[in-house]
């Protein structure tokens, strides 16, 4: 057993990492689905979208061949509507609420239709929004992820001059660095950032990290308002023996490397254990398998009823051939010569409900071993607590505390997205950016 890279041929990499949700191949195919839409009133799909996209309207606009109007409808509510059409867990959002589900019929493929309109908008670089003349106000945004970009776009439209400080070399945040490669490509993410900023009035300064290159205090002094959207990033540690052995990695770093280094150069084990059952765990497991790992086993301490990922995501992992061990909690990583050889797990059972309302897992005393050479930790992400503390931003356990959706304890400083909520979907971050922009517009009395 060994961790190594370059396991597959170029064709295999290409096939394994091609679009998992391919677009409509023809206009006719899109039309058939668009015409199925009932055009519901006060539509459940819209109500189930965190950004409240007027779904029936944009689908109706596809049927009338008003694709510009359709894209405008989407982007008006969600400027990352193109990316969201690829990464949203729609089965628990818009498509999950589609009334066709109540007829036991397949729901409208809303995401695919959204992709149909938004891809054309991006491909033709349709400028669907006008920026108002500059109002002479400057706003600094920390983080060029979904929340930051969404906030920036609303402000730019209103004539505000926006500067975004981004710690990475590219924009897009977790969209660019933290999502499985078969959902969005780095090239798409770059295109999306460029499309959003093409409205003008948005200047992104890369490789600028809060607490390292800039401080909140400086930004408060130099700008009329500040929006914090720096996300989360640190992988939650397992706090078990052997966690520092060679071969134990965290999922965020693993996917970051996958997104930045290219598939062939990324090493993966023969036999991989993935800890956790959230969306990121699924991404890590499927990507490991598609990089050529022979066995991938997902280890989760609760049962399927409590898993954070959707059934749809679990199905993808199962179809990729990943194994799942339910009611198994990592106890110790064992190794030889400093390298991982085994993951020891406690066999769990469900006890009383915990703070989250889910029945908490309790060790039974039994254990089992998995022979693995790689362990990927996907047990959640931690907020940047130390940095937040140093910047004197009000917080609870590292998560920025806000009033009225986005107002922080500091004057003229607003926040939203993962740094506030601890890590939710891209679409939630986009809405948080809109909320932040609304609060800033009110604060600046524009």
């Amino acid at each position, binding site marked *: 057993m060994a961790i190594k890279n370059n396991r597959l041929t170029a064709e295999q990499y290409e096939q394994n990492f091609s679009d998992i949700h391919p677009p409509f191949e023809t206009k006719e195919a899109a*039309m*058939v689905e*668009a*015409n199925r839409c*009932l*055009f*519901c*009133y*006060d*539509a*459940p*799909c819209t*109500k*189930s979208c965190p950004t409240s996209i007027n779904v029936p309207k944009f689908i109706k606009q596809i*049927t009338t061949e008003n694709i510009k109007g359709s894209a405008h409808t989407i982007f008006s509510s969600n400027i990352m509507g193109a990316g969201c059409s690829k990464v949203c867990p729609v089965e628990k959002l818009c498509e999950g*609420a589609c*009334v*066709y589900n*109540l*007829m036991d019929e397949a729901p409208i493929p809303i995401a695919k239709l959204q992709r149909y309109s938004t891809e054309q908008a991006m491909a033709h670089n349709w400028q669907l929004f006008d920026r108002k003349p500059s109002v002479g106000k400057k706003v600094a945004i920390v983080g060029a992820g979904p929340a930051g970009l969404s906030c920036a776009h609303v402000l730019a439209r209103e004539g505000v001059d926006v500067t975004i400080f981004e710690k990475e070399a590219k924009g897009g945040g977790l969209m660019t660095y933290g999502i499985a490669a078969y959902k969005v490509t780095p090239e798409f993410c770059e295109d999306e950032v460029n499309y959003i900023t093409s409205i003008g009035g948005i200047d992104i300064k890369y490789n600028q990290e809060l607490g390292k290159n800039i401080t909140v205090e400086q930004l408060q002094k130099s700008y009329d308002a500040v929006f914090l959207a720096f996300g989360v990033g640190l992988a939650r540690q397992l706090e078990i023996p052997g966690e520092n052995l060679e071969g134990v990695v965290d999922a965020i770093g693993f996917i970051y490397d996958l997104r930045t280094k290219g598939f062939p150069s990324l090493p993966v084990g023969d036999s991989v254990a993935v800890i956790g059952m959230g969306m990121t765990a699924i991404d890590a497991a499927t990507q490991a398998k598609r990089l050529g790992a022979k066995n991938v086993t997902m280890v989760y301490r609760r049962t399927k009823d409590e898993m954070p990922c959707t059934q749809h995501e679990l199905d993808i992992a199962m179809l990729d051939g990943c194994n799942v061990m339910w009611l198994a909690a990592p106890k110790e990583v064992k190794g030889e010569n400093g390298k991982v050889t085994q993951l020891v797990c406690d066999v769990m059972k469900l006890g009383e409900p915990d703070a989250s309302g889910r029945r908490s897992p309790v060790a039974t005393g039994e254990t089992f071993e998995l022979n693995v050479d790689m362990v990927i930790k996907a047990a959640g992400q931690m907020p940047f607590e130390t940095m937040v503390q140093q910047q004197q931003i009000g917080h609870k356990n590292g998560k920025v505390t806000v009033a009225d959706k986005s107002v922080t304890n500091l004057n003229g400083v607003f926040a939203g997205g993962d740094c506030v909520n601890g890590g939710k979907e891209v679409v939630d971050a986009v809405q948080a950016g809109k909320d932040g922009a609304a609060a800033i517009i009110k604060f600046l009395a524009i």
Partner: protein
Amino acid sequence: MADISVNFLGIKSPNPFWLASAPPTDKKINVVRAFEAGWGGVVWKTLGSQVKNVSSRYSAVDYGGHRVMGLNNIELISDRPLDINLKEITEVVKMFPDRAMIVSLMADNDRESWHELIKKCEDAGAMGFELNFGCPHGMTERGMGAAVGQDPEIARMVVEWVMEKATIPVITKLTPNVHSVVPTGAACVEAGTNALSLINTIQSVTGIDLDTFVPNPYVGGKSVFGGYCGPAVKPIALKMLTTISQNEITRKVPISGIGGISTWKDAVEFMLLGATTVQVCTAAMKHGFRIVEDMCEGLNNWMDEKGFKTVNDFIGKSVEKITHWEDLDINYHHVANINQDKCIHCGLCYIACEDTSHQAINIAKGNPYNNYTIKEEECVGCNLCKLVCPVDNCITMEEKRVAPEYINWIEWQRRGLPLNDH
């Protein structure tokens, strides 16, 4: 098994489904294919003076992703030499003696031309004629087609010429491009026509190319009005058929119904309103002749279910059900009911009623699903909610008579009963 055969003025056909005079009946090869597929009869595409056709010839109206809800055409009568048509008719009659072979005619507007054409077609083996008084394009400019059908006196004259000569049954086909089909229909019956058929196509513009600004169909940068047909015209055809079935002169002769018939259900509706046979074109042009299989089987099964032994058991059964507005029962009232178990919470009933009707539906907001219930006291029983509901039998109309006795508008007024109760 019910007997679905028909006897139309002595012309027998194994089922009531004929192909209308149109491109599908223009040539032997088409008609043989139709008879092999099971069609009961054809009306051979109109024979008459020599014409020249243009390209293109058809255009369509699509709706909600469905192609050809309506079709229009600017094709003229048969552009093939008369002797070839006649020779082929003879051959087909010999091959399929059990099928109805009607020949559509449109001669030049003089007695001799009509007599000559009738003689030739009878010699060729035609079993009946259909006089084309309806073609709305191309021929009218020459005083033929709809130009005849739109003037009862010209129609009467031509029918009289025809009846002087014809020894086989004569059907006169009526144009819908008139205020009422009854005056021409009555004139033709008085002149001796043995039967009527309707409707021919309706003058139309199906649409315009938004890039070139040229309407459809496109002919070298221009267009003309075309004759409209297909499912979209069925309700208009049924209305016109009813007026013919109810008029005391026109109802004396059998009728062949035409206009958007695509299924056995459509056919039954035409027959319930008085048609003995039905003629089909657009549906066959869209799907081919194979559609006749389900038309026969569907009609047969429906007749069995209803206990009808022959088509004569139900032809005309609905004619008396269409009355004058003044005769409707004002005390009849029904209100909508939404079956909450079937409701999918789409809100279509609510927004239709709220925006465009009587604000008779309650909305209880939910996330993500709202609940909708009827305000019975506000409901006028218009049916709109039921019509827009995408779930079968989710919204039903429940009878809630205002009073037990029948009362019509005239009686209502006579008694001075209150108005404007909504």
